[in-house]
């Protein structure tokens, strides 16, 4: 649905220029929720803005629904944008308009007739859980409600793609969960393809099917969330399941990454029994992601190199990702 192919973007010129995007490629399948994570200044904002051509890349192409967005201009670009909704960190609602009128703006722009607009707005407000708020002004709403208006506005014209620019970054944790759940449900219900950028790893864990980690304009890793989590030395895995500092010890320390299948097995107990090692658990972070257990455990393995090597080989033979960190 969305295909970003080798785009680069540079701001300014000469020595003071800043590279915002450096040869970035990614593909978002239809109906998928794709998250791009990274620190501020990593280029995520520029990346997402190329998808509806609010920014034009210096090189490379962005294709949405088979259309090369970067080549479109004028009326054809505006028409393409009706198919790409966008929500923002600071909601960007018009303070002079009621909830109803804010959502209607999207349809006014799309040239929908007044009576049809009314019907559609009522429908979409119901869908995002804002029933009865049609005549309120944005200033009278909570942050979560404002973002619901933003979502309603973005989706009013029935787009097939939703872009989310840090949509939950200004919200408290509880509201964040509610908005993320709403986005996931809408994505499923409407078959919506979602590309979101965030600096919160939790967002990825909560709703993303696939993710990319960005830093300094480059994508460092990408793939399905599950595959990234079960990849050795995955930045995403380390960020989602932080284990803290490695303690000072003479023994071998390993980190095991669990995925859905292996997490249910009593790995540590087996290890102790089979190899006679007094396994010490130094840290563990396990969570349920998309209904599967995933996470990492840091273990201390006392004993000779021969014993520990054999134990590690055994773990690996069970299909576990084992990383020797000390």
């Amino acid at each position, binding site marked *: 649905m969305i295909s970003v192919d080798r785009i680069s973007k540079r701001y300014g010129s000469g020595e003071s220029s800043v590279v915002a995007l450096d040869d970035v490629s990614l593909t978002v399948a239809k109906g998928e929720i794709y998250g791009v994570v990274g620190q501020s200044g990593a280029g995520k904002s520029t990346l997402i803005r190329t998808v509806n051509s609010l920014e034009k890349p210096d090189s490379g192409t962005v294709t949405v629904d088979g259309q090369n967005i970067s080549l479109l201009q004028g009326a054809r670009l*505006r028409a393409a944008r009706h198919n790409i909704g*966008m929500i*923002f960190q*600071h909601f960007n609602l018009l303070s*002079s308009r009621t909830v109803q009128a804010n959502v209607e*703006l999207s349809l006014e*722009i*799309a040239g929908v007739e007044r009576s049809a607009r009314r019907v559609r707005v009522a429908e979409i407000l119901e869908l995002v859980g804002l029933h009865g708020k049609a005549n309120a002004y944005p200033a009278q709403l909570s942050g979560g409600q404002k973002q619901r208006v933003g979502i309603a506005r973005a989706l009013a*014209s029935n787009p097939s793609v939703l872009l989310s620019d840090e949509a939950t970054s200004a919200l408290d944790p509880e509201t964040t969960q509610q908005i993320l759940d709403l986005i996931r449900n809408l994505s499923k219900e409407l078959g919506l393809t979602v590309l979101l950028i965030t600096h919160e790893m939790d967002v990825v864990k909560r709703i993303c099917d696939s993710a990319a980690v960005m830093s300094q304009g480059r994508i460092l890793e990408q793939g399905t969330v599950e595959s990234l989590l079960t990849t050795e030395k995955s930045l995403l895995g380390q960020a989602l399941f932080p284990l803290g500092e490695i303690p000072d010890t003479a023994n071998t320390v390993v980190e095991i990454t669990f995925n859905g299948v292996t997490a249910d097995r009593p790995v540590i107990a087996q290890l102790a029994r089979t190899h006679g090692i007094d396994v010490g658990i130094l840290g563990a972070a396990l969570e349920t992601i998309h209904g599967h257990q995933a996470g990492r455990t840091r273990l201390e393995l006392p004993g000779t190199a021969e014993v520990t090597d054999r134990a590690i080989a055994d773990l690996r033979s069970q299909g576990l990702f084992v990383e020797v960190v000390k």
Partner: protein
Amino acid sequence: MIDRNDPSFWSDLFETILKGAGETFYTVGFSLLLTVIFGLAAGVLLVATETGGLLAKPFGSRALGLVINRALDLLVNIGRSIPFIILMILLIPFTRMLVGSFIGATAAIVPLTIAGIPFFARLVEIGIREVPVGLVEAAESLGANRWTILTKVLVAEAVPAITLGLSTTIVGLIGYSAMVGAVGGGGLGDVAFRYGYQRYSPEYMFAVVILLILLVQVFQSLGNIASRRLSHR
């Protein structure tokens, strides 16, 4: 010197002031109308034609946008830097060309409008600049064209600020209109100057001053109330 013991003194005063107020309303009303039309356009253009603005490249020409922007900015600054009394005199030939005379209430509309436009344009510009850029981006993401963004986002969101600017402009125009009065433009200023100053009647002078204070109060309050009503921030 007017004889205040004349039995018709107060009725004359009342009549004269009423006539003067009528002329003031006429000149201020018309010049305000023209000021709003041209000032709004100029204010919007000042913001829109600057680099990175919505009309930074009118007809695809960046140079044209820059020229319009700089020219407008210069004109607005010139208009605001010339003291009104001088501007009035400078404009005499222009006024005569336009309305056939430079004396009278209609003639007074010309310098008032010329002084009002740059004043109001700056206030409109400031109002529009306060609209968060995110709103423009949101409208763009919805596929809005430039006209829609200008009218439904920038100007619509700046309406409370523009309303406040409008009342400030009305107050300014009332003040200027009194000055025009002193050189033959009629209105309350003319009354105060001819009766109050030249014929030394403190009653006329005070009556005009009190009326002007009341007018300014009323318009400023109306503007404040309207702006608050229109703002939903």
